[in-house]
């Protein structure tokens, strides 16, 4: 028995290494082909990618992690929803709602030096309320949340566009943006000389909290039960499933709203139209690649942050166009899906 186990495990490592290598080779191969076809320097492109993502302390702390912050928070929002059986793909809209609310609070000037203590909870509340629309539509009318939350993303986008030209516009009423926040409304930086702000610490802390919540608390267990088997939870556990689903919507929206609040108070210091390049959609990939595990989302958040930071460096230093970067991101995601598949197949074959 032991000998057999030993031989299989040695065979195994080969078998286990081969598919990832193949998939990586294919992804890298396609990328190389496209770079060459576009007459860009391959070595320069790849080294720019490395420099821009992990190549220096600045690249890591100020580029990769700053980008990872909203992706991590939104990834957690998506993961919480998905694990609870709620297909909330409206994190984008909830993010915008949170960003708008935080901005509105900051601009009223309440709270003085403690304005963040009001602004961030306002963002949380706004995100939860925006999600509650989809949650309410599901509970009352059985509307598929995939669709309603997607629709609400577009509504939120136009709402922000209106706000920055209307009620929240900067005082001269010229530019479609708000006034820049004062220092009291700016999240403290974590490392001097770097742009990394408190928001990332909040994200990591929240990941730990969610991990603990799902693992150890009754609320987390209830959410998990409804996500894994709503009928069993209702029958065996006498769980009020509609109420739990609604709660999941609220919590997910709250986290996404927080992400919006963190982005305006930690990075942009003002509300703009187009403040999100689709963070909410990328976050779906962040969450799913982490298999909805909050701790793993810290990792996938960094991965996607690095991908975007590295890709920006490829644009800057190697002249590889923006559109190509989208191709690279798509290929990497597809590559990871393929890897996942080889791993799953390996698992069932055993």
């Amino acid at each position: 028995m032991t000998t057999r186990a030993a031989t299989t495990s040695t065979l195994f490592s080969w078998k286990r290494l081969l598919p990832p290598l193949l998939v990586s080779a294919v992804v890298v191969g396609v990328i190389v082909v496209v770079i060459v076809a576009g007459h860009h320097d391959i070595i320069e492109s790849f080294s720019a990618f490395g420099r821009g993502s992990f190549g220096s302390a600045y690249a890591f702390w100020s580029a990769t992690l700053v980008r990872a912050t909203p992706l991590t928070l939104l990834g957690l929002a998506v993961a919480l929803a998905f694990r609870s059986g709620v297909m909330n793909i409206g994190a984008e809209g909830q993010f915008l709602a949170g960003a708008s609310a935080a901005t509105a609070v900051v601009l009223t000037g309440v709270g003085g030096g403690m304005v963040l203590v009001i602004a961030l909870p306002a963002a949380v509340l706004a995100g939860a309320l925006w999600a509650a629309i989809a949650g309410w539509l599901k509970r009352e009318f059985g509307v598929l949340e995939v669709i309603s939350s997607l629709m609400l993303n577009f509504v939120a986008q136009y709402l922000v566009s209106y706000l920055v030209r209307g009620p929240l516009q900067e005082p001269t009423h010229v530019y479609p943006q708000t006034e820049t926040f004062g220092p009291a409304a700016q999240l403290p930086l974590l490392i001097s000389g770097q742009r990394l702000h408190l928001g990332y610490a909040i994200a990591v802390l929240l990941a730990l909290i969610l991990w603990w919540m799902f693992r150890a608390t009754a609320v987390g267990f209830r959410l998990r039960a409804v996500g894994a088997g709503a009928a069993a939870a209702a029958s065996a556990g006498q769980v009020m499933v509609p109420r739990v689903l609604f709660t999941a919507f609220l919590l997910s929206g709250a986290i996404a709203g927080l992400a919006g609040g963190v982005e305006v108070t930690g990075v942009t210091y003002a509300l703009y139209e187009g403040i999100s390049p689709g963070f909410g959609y990328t976050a779906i990939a962040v969450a799913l690649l982490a298999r909805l595990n909050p701790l793993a989302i810290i990792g996938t958040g960094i991965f996607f942050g690095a991908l975007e930071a590295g890709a920006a460096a490829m644009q800057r230093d190697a002249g590889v166009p923006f559109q190509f970067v989208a191709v690279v991101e798509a290929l990497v995601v597809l590559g990871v899906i393929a890897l996942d598949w080889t791993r799953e197949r390996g698992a069932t074959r055993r």
Partner: protein
Amino acid sequence: MTDALAPFVEATVRTATPLAFAALGELVAERSGVINIGLEGTIIAGAFGGLVVAGTAGAGLGFVGAVAAGMLVAAIFAFFVVTLKADHIITGTAISMLGVGSTGTLYRLYYGTTGAALETPTLAPFPIPILHSIPWIGGAFFAQPPVMYLLYVIVPCLAWCMTRTSVGLALRAVGERPEAARAAGISPARVRWVALLFCGAMGGLSGGTLVLAQVGTFNEGISAGRGFIAIAIVVLGRWSAVGVTGAALLFGAASALQYLAQAMGWGIPYQFALALPYVLTLAALAGAGKRSAAPASLGVRG
């Protein structure tokens, strides 16, 4: 009022046409149980494929190019979602990115970074005798580029196929309960492949219509979110071919109303007007009531 009505109806139909193509494709995909969020990538690939082929072979063959390009992108999606049993939403997001990115990259490779203004051949409107002179709606429905008339063939065919043919039956069974279909000797994977390729063809047609029958040129963001709107339309149309066409027209009407509102200077902030279609969908969804018509296995992996 009547002189404003005809242009309004025409704008409605024109806006609805590419949406209807894409949504009918999505309808078939969703009926087979696959939610294709990558539709946006399919549309833009179709638009680009149409541009490339039409440039050398004319607008008519351009549509063939559009359909082929749409199907190519759909095939990648199908490979991951059906063959590798990957998650629909994550794959769809990646495919959207891939479509938008690769068309932008290829556009630059083909036509240069600052290439001259591109003008592609377009299909001229082909008024159908007699019918096109019906007051108010004749121009909108019967004096369009011929590709639009394809809808008059596809919609009834699709409606008939889904209820009255063994293929349609198989399609619905796979979307509702794949294991039942398998027991009846139908391969769910094969049905989904075919459904997704059809979806790709229709998405390609949608992009081709934009470029070759409406705008006459290509730009990198020309699909402008139509893939996502099409998904909403399928839901609004309650997963039936006729319903989806109606919903596409409703969306077209909402957009046309928005154009009209701005042209008439009605003084509504234009963001509200632009958000109107989405709010309308949400309202209509709420009004549709509890009993959902969604295929039971929609979005389920494998």
